[in-house]
């Protein structure tokens, strides 16, 4: 027992010494970027990392006289790994801010670390509504699924879609999408005939799609992770559902810019609501897309990339305002930022620390031989409907 106490106190002393040393090194501003760089969600990680590096290339790597150091770590999209890496980054590397977080469980697992160490945590991808409530230190620059889902739920009833069947992947974001779409759609006088949840490891959409077809709705609302979107879209067309008069609507995840082109013509005419399209018509976005493609072998930026890009912007501006600060001061400087993003105008709501931005209604069209989500309607300044306050 004695020995253990001795060991513990020595360890503590050593640790605080290291901490003191690290603090002494005051000329860098460290950003710990945790992303899934391998595994099924690697494309998310690639997009965000590319966007973050692009932002640094465009805006220099010094802020308020300090050198910005970007530490990129791969969490393989396993929550326990994310948490461990976050811990190491906070304790060993003394990062000023944690960022990244490709999926909801990864962000939720790390939330307690942000709270305990008072480190601001910028969510650049994960989109379940409740994430920002998990810690007062979480700021989000991506989007929330309820935001995207209510957009299409507002648009559909005005455009002759009265009866809808929903089909979502059976996990957090899918259930979020289903719930908020349904609530808003019913509120707008629509009718949801059936809600179908497809297991995550579902090999074949056939039976679910057949069920939808036999129910004969005006449209099918879809949320699936972006990779599965292509398969779903093809089977939708193969089953002749478009010819049977069923429209395909959904959140923008289904027609992800990253893979939209490889889906082929079956995607044409699909209407979705989302906060970002690579074809968004603004000078800033044109510049962003061009620079991104130039730096990444022609890879098209998607909504993940823009979340990462804006996340870096929020961090940079907060660092400038606080002269490279950390903790509560840095967090305060992130809240309430209003700026023009490639996606359009956006701001960080000071109360909820969540992003507020326009939701666009888009239709897949062919532009110059390539498929794009062409925006044709805008719902301005959508706050996350998932927050009760």
């Amino acid at each position, binding site marked *: 027992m004695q020995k253990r106490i001795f060991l513990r106190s020595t360890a503590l002393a050593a640790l605080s010494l290291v901490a003191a040393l690290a603090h002494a090194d005051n000329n860098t501003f460290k950003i710990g970027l945790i992303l899934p760089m391998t595994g099924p969600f690697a494309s998310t990680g690639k997009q965000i990392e590319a966007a973050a590096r692009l932002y640094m290339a465009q805006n220099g790597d010094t802020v308020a006289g300090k050198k910005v150091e970007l530490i990129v770590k791969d969490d393989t999209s396993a929550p326990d790994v994310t948490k461990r890496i976050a811990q190491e980054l906070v304790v060993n590397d003394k990062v000023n801010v944690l960022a990244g977080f490709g999926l909801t469980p990864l962000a939720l697992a790390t939330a307690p670390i942000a709270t305990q160490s008072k480190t601001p945590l910028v969510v650049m991808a994960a989109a379940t509504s409740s994430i920002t409530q998990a810690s007062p230190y979480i700021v989000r620059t991506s989007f929330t699924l309820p935001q995207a889902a209510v957009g299409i739920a507002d648009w559909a009833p005005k455009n002759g879609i009265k009866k809808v069947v929903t089909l979502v992947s059976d996990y957090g974001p899918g259930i979020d999408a289903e719930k908020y779409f349904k609530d808003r759609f019913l509120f707008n006088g629509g009718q949801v005939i059936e809600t179908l949840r497809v*297991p995550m490891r579902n*090999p*074949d959409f056939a*039976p679910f799609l057949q*069920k939808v077809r036999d129910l004969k709705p005006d449209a099918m609302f879809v949320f699936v992770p972006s990779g599965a979107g292509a*398969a779903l879209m093809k089977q939708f067309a193969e089953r*002749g559902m478009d010819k049977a008069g069923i429209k395909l609507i959904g959140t923008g995840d289904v027609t992800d810019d990253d893979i939209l082109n490889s889906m082929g013509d079956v995607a044409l005419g699909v209407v979705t609501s989302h906060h970002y399209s690579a074809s968004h018509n603004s000078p800033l976005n044109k510049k962003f897309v061009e620079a991104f493609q130039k730096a990444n072998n022609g890879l098209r930026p998607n909504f993940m990339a823009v979340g990462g890009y804006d996340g870096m912007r929020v961090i940079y501006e907060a660092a400038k305002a606080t002269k490279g600060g950390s903790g509560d001061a840095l967090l305060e400087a992130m809240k309430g930022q209003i700026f023009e993003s490639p996606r359009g105008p956006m701001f960080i709501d000071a109360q909820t620390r969540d992003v507020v931005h326009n939701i666009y209604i888009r239709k897949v069209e062919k532009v110059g031989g390539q498929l794009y989500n062409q925006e044709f309607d805008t719902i301005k300044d959508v706050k996350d409907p998932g927050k009760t306050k």
Partner: protein
Amino acid sequence: MLTILFDGIAYGMLLFILAVGLSVTMGLMNFINLAHGAFAMVGGYITVVLMQRHGVPFMACLPLAFGGAALLGMVLERTLYRTMYRKPHLDQVLFSIGLAFMAVATADYFMGSQQQIMQLPEWLRGRTELFDGALGMGHYRLFIIAVCAALTIGLQFILSKTRFGSRLRASVDDPRVAAGLGINVNVVFAATFAVGSGLAGLGGALGAEVLGLDPTFPLKFMVYFLIVVAVGGTSSITGPLLAALLLGIADVAGKYFIPKLGAFIVYALMIAILIWRPQGLFVRKGGK
């Protein structure tokens, strides 16, 4: 209603082609090859790469997927699997699951972890409706059923009517006596293993469109293969065929009629069948 039956049959046929090789090797050498799905994945990737990057027509990709997977199967059988035959089952299982993991990591490294997307030729994309829309058949699924039915008949013919078939059956029933009668059991087995792997490769190529194709394919479908083999028994190919059809139809119909329980029905069915017939649906008398 008929459409569901049709989709179920297409799905079952695909499962059968994917799993039949496993069933034969398991019956033949009593070797549990959990890496079987990796050969299917190889076939799938061969097709995707040839089609998308080199513009090879789809119909030419199918035999190449078969050949590629069969060749790989033969090489691995000669070099790796052979040494494992006399080891206990636990070693074999650990060995082959290790291979499966390595295949997953390799595919991830070279091909990336995303779902592969395939563009079918135009003539396979349509759909035919019969009986006032009561039976809607996607042309691609029709094609799958046709190919798989032809393969099944071919396999059945080889097994029951040719000399190689009788040697194979003899080796399955009792390898020692078969060897004593002058049958080169090793060659029989190597050939069977290669063909089984090739069939899996063909199944992977055909299935990439329907089942999806990503590096976790071997693990995702391992359970389905094992169910087909466990339910169908390992002594014939009629067993796995009926098991696969039953499984396919039950899976599709279950998801259609009770979507909330959908993914569970298959397992319930398997448990019920195995309680009723622990050896699988079909057991041939005289086998060991």
